């Protein structure tokens, strides 16, 4: 899931300087779980902007703001208010905000910071889990990601800095490599640690990337 966090109120207000009427767009997926773009947050944003003299003239709550085809349809509901609004405030992640911006000729401002790809540990607690490195190594590391969970993204074992099983960079985090060691030990796969891993390659990560399933050839 894409984990997002609400921007500071002043920052959002600074985008809207001079704006009188705005439209809000939420997102029914990740941003709802993160409490940054659900129905409640749309209501709160509406009240907050009203208290600063900005009227919300319309809002939509699409199932997912990052689905272009879906967004195209959803935006139709705004066809009467969009022309008269001064700006659109997106309560989704950076992806959703771009999707909306690509579909309309209005200023679209992000209400959220897009933080990381992570998991929902418990309600309201999110942990970074995958840095989308393209070449997943979880098979060798007991299902624990060294690229994300090790602060230095080390691939051949730990640095010397862990104390009491904690990471030297942030003592609140466990050292990923000690966790990997313990997990592989439990699985009887410590030999995987002995293997020498080549530095990760980056030639296939030049962005922005496109994956086109329609053109993908399949060997039958």
């Amino acid at each position, binding site marked *: 899931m894409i984990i997002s966090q609400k921007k500071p109120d002043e920052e959002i207000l600074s985008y809207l300087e001079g704006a009188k009427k705005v439209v809000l767009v939420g997102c029914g997926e990740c941003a709802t779980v993160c409490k940054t773009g659900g129905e409640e947050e749309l209501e709160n944003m509406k009240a907050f902007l009203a208290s600063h003299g900005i009227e919300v003239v319309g809002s939509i709550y699409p199932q997912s703001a990052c689905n272009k085809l879906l967004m195209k349809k959803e935006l139709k509901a705004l066809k009467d208010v969009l022309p008269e609004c001064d700006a659109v405030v997106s309560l989704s992640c950076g992806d959703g905000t771009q999707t909306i911006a690509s579909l309309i000729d209005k200023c679209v401002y992000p209400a959220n910071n897009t933080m990381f790809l992570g998991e929902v540990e418990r309600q309201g607690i999110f942990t970074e889990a995958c840095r989308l490195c393209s070449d997943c190594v979880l098979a060798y590391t007991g299902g624990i990601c060294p690229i994300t969970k090790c602060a230095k993204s080390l691939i051949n074992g730990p640095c010397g800095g862990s104390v009491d099983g904690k990471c030297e960079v942030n003592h609140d985090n466990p050292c990923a490599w000690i966790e990997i060691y313990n997990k592989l030990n439990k699985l009887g796969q410590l030999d995987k640690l002995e293997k020498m891993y080549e*530095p990760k390659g980056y030639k296939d990560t030049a962005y922005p990337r496109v994956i086109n399933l329609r053109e993908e050839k399949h060997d039958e």
Partner: protein
Amino acid sequence: MSKLKQALDSGTFALTAEIAPPKGFDFTRQLYLANLLKDKVHAVNVTDFQSASLKASSLGLCIMLKQAGIEPVFQITGRDRSRMAIQGDMLSAAAFGIKNILALTGDHTTVGDCKDSKPVFDLDSVGILKAARMLESGQDCGGNALNGESPEFYLGACVTPEYDPVELQIIKMKKKAMAGAAFFQTQGLYDIESFKRFMDYASKIECKVLAGIIPLKSAGMAKFMNRSVPGIRVPDSLIERLKNSSEPVKEGILIAAEFISKIKEQGICDGAHIMAIGAEENVPLILEAAGL
């Protein structure tokens, strides 16, 4: 040929000491210190943005030492440079006759003094060693052939003996040795018995080991290091000694000297690496007290 390699290969108890480049471009003090160490140690390590804090670069001071007739150990971390920059620096080092390279992961940028700097970590320490090996075989990181002769290095790495679980450090140490590390410097050590236990594992790996020595200046420093420096464990008995001494700096020099002479006498490892952190003037005193 590297003097350090010569010493280690011939079974001489090898000595290295470490200095840091300045935060500025006046290298006078560094050269003064290096000259002080010149005939006392086999090589002088130059740290690479130690503690993730900005200084003049390691390569610059290494070149200056080399030109002053002092053998440097060029420390390279993976924190600030991509594989291209690392290999480029290695080639420049080779051009100046610098042979010794010490590969390190490096502290994270967020613990240093330029916290917003991008943490690169394109290569880990194993990757840095391999990158050096690749150059030695006449190839760059893209598999392209180098022009002219291939460089020759003497490669080293670090290990933290006071680590739990120690097996994990040993696995990584083995990998570093396989990737090309011929010698290892350890994190600062204070407990001979514990070091011996570590060497029981480490001596099975084909490599030379230099015991890390960080001279203590006071009981407070020892306590601070126990609290905040990973891999450091100063025993209470030594903290007591420093506390009870009227000249703790001298006591610290003595403690370091005793440790060095013990490991030498008992043949526990192949040499010592002294990290005096700002008190490099004391290194000759330590060696003298150790009878070296």
